[in-house]
């Protein structure tokens, strides 16, 4: 009995600890595209800058493609009580500054993590892949409890 329970635990924890860390392939070949990438992520960088200036926000990460802007941020512990209002404020600011983009902004930790992941691998993926991943995160953020 006890053994089977232990086994179950081992399975649960072992099955989940493999962080996606593969795909660091051929970074050099893509270096030529770096310049392009920078221009490409200009909106995201600007958005990050803007949101970072909000007093309650401690950390921001953003990515964009041609139409979508995805932004995750963290809120100071004691301002978490007002998470909803802050989220609203962030969204309002972004839609004012970037009216051409479809904006998703969330303080949810998961969104922050996933956005960071996309951002860190910008160079490794085609813009199509990126859009696909972004859409996935956006869908996740719209999930209700």
């Amino acid at each position, binding site marked *: *009995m006890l053994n089977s329970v232990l086994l179950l635990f081992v399975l649960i924890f072992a099955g989940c600890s493999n962080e996606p860390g593969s795909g660091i392939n051929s970074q050099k070949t893509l270096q030529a595209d770096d310049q392009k990438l920078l221009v490409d992520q200009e909106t995201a960088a600007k958005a990050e800058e803007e949101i970072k200036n909000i007093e309650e926000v401690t950390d921001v990460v953003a990515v964009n493609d041609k139409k979508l802007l995805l932004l995750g941020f963290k809120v100071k*512990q*004691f301002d*978490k*009580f*007002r*998470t*909803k209002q802050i989220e609203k404020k962030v969204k309002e600011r972004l839609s004012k500054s970037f009216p051409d983009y479809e904006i998703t902004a969330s*303080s949810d930790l998961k969104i922050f993590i996933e956005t960071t992941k996309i951002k860190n691998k910008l160079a490794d993926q085609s813009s199509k892949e990126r859009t696909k991943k972004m859409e996935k995160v956006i869908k996740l953020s719209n999930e*209700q*409890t």
Partner: protein
Amino acid sequence: MFQTFFWAFVVGGLICVVGQIMFDVFKLTPGHTLSSLVVAGAILDGFGLYEPLIDFAGAGATIPITSFGNSLVHGALQEAEKHGIIGVLTGMFEVTSSGISAAIIFGFIGALLFKPKG
């Protein structure tokens, strides 16, 4: 990260202290105490106060039974937004089902596996 854990501990612990006071000072039975806490959670959510607490304390607010009342209200309100008044009735368990279904399933499994130790 540390802060997240710290406040989960503190807020969760404080909600338990409220329960303990209801046990010891007001001499309520566990049944009465837990029922009252659930009702309190529902009412707090009605005023929009419980969600901020969850944002603040994470599991410190979702693990205590008070969150059960909160998520029942949430489920009802979500459905009400979509389907109007009737959604209040139908959406109730939309969100909370995990606690109840887990309790039912593990309860049954427990009955299969264990005998009361006395």
